[in-house]
């Protein structure tokens, strides 16, 4: 039972990271990026190209991947955000879905469909206590999530640029009016959003292996988590993610493993019915 908790939380942390990347972009430009899962996949494969194909040390592979993903984020912004400014929401959704299809199939062409493994940045025997096994990598996942949350919090509240980003998120037009370099904040949001998913990919590949279609399911869970926590609500997303990881794991164990994917949606629908703005409420309100 304790083992289920550990595994559920590890899985949930991945979901939380995907959701965080998603929300960073959403909070700034009101776009839900349905290709966030494919960005995760891209991060995993860039990492593998560095660490496995070119046999660079894992730490360097991580560094290169993060830089590369930031660039990917900005390219993504240019291709998706600028052309679609002001268009109705579901056209944007369709566009990001189409981008996801493009990325996934390009990955299939470049890297082929065979699953590949990525070594974890941490080594060592697993920790055992009270009948529960926690691998070093799982500990690393928890640690990474904690560090990212801390850095994100400090950045957004204590640095000047971070505060500017929050202002942009609250009201883009007014922010522009008062001279905030809005385009720069948007670019940073996309870049960081992509980096967060890239990191999730680097964390996932050592345990789940990487293959080009891995993004679809993980991305979807990331959205579900965002909805459960309340769109725009960062702490909500983290709690939602961990919560979903636990629900899936316990549900698969005690209810039925057949419907594992459905649990995410059932919980999401249940939450929406009871709390239409998510468990912790959204940040932004509907514009008339």
């Amino acid at each position, binding site marked *: 039972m304790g083992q*289920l908790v550990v595994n559920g939380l590890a899985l949930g942390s991945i979901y939380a990271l995907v959701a965080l990347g998603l929300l960073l972009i959403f909070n700034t430009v009101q776009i839900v990026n349905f290709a966030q899962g494919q960005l995760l996949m891209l991060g995993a494969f860039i990492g593998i190209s560095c660490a496995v194909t070119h046999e660079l040390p894992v730490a360097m592979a991580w560094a290169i991947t993060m830089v590369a993903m930031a660039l990917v984020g900005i390219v993504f912004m240019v291709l998706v955000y600028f052309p679609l400014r002001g268009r109705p929401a579901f056209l944007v959704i369709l566009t990001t879905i189409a981008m996801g299809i493009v990325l996934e199939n390009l990955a299939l062409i470049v890297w082929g469909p065979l699953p590949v493994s990525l070594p974890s940045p941490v080594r060592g025997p697993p920790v055992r206590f009270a009948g529960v096994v926690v691998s070093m990598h799982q500990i690393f996942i928890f640690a990474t999530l904690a560090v990212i949350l801390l850095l994100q919090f400090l950045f957004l509240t204590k640095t000047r640029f971070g505060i500017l980003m929050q202002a942009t998120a609250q009201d883009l037009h007014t922010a522009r009016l008062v001279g905030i370099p809005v385009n720069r904040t948007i670019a940073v949001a996309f870049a960081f959003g992509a980096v967060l998913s890239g990191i999730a990919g680097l964390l996932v590949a050592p345990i789940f292996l990487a293959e080009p279609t891995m993004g679809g399911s993980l991305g979807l869970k990331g959205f579900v988590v965002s909805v459960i926590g309340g769109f725009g609500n960062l702490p909500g997303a983290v709690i939602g993610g961990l919560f979903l990881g636990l629900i899936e794991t316990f549900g*698969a164990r005690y209810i039925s*493993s057949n419907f*594992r994917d459905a649990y995410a949606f059932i919980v999401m629908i249940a939450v929406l019915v009871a709390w239409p703005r998510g468990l912790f409420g959204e940040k932004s309100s509907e514009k008339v």
Partner: protein
Amino acid sequence: MFYVSLKTSVTAVTAIWLSVAVAADAKADAASCPSSIPFGLTTALTGNLALLGTQARNGAEFAVDEINAGGGIAGKKIALTTEDTGASSTDALNAMNRILEGKPLVILGSMISPHVFAQTEVVTKSETPFLVGATNAKVTMQGSKWLFRTHVHDGQLAELIPEYLVKTLGKTRPGIMAVADDYGLGASKGIQAALAKLKVSPAAVASYAPSDKDMSAQLLEIKDKDADSLILFGRPADVTLVIKQMNDLGIKLTTIGNASIVAQTTLNNLSAAEADGGYAIGGMIPQTSTDAKIMDWSKRVQDKYKVPADNFTVSYYDTVYLLKSIIEKVGCNKPAIRDALAATKDWKGMLISYQADGQGDLAHTLGIYRNKGKTPELTGPIKESGY
């Protein structure tokens, strides 16, 4: 005046006609074939089943190229047309319709059972021999006399795996874990039925979606219910994850399953410790052969297609050569080919012999494998009961 009696004329004409007919018949086999013998192949080349589907193309194409390089069948080259079924059964049906346009002599279908189910009716109507690797037991129970299967099927696996586990390995409380698609669930049902016949009931029956990455919940359930072994049915990508996660969780169970456990793509992603000891029963794979010719064949296939050959590659390769030997005997006549296929007896393929049964199944020999570290070893061949 030249007078030939009617009787003489008729006799003469009949004699000439008969001799021409006899002479023609002797050459009927080669002469009845067009200069380019059309073979059709439908398989998944794109989509989530492509990893599996391309093995059919690899095996068949490799054989066709080899045969053509050697002069073809009785001097006539084979023209292989391949159509991509994609991932959905509707697309598979469209692909088959396209193949039928080209009026092929024979059609090879893929190993993906839902696709073959979708295609059978239209192929049967066209009265073309249809050779498939699809493993769902019911594929050959559709009542089509044109459909033949040249790979072992899940019905056989469902019988042999429980029997080997209980009688040879002596385990009586297996946990069952299968991928939740047609392949895995069909096999899981068959295995449960076979276990019931052996008066063994499984400790737990679990499944996972094909795209699932975390199977720890299912593994923990199997462990908690005190299973003494694990029957694992999936594709290499997910079987790799199950074995890895079993190791991570410290669960030690005798594991037996389908060929995915010894597949090269699985072993490439496992450590020696993780892979060691796993059993597999399935279509015979080329990796364990010590025959130099087979090892050379495997290497050439891998060099050409960048993916290691598996049991399906072998099966489709054999199928093309089987067709060659039949066409050499009976010519390019579809009903004759069909009849010859139905009468196949003891035809030696690369690793096994083929023999047709009443339902159209030609493969009845499977291999039992065990991983020694990252290398699969052939424990021995095992035949379906009655063979």
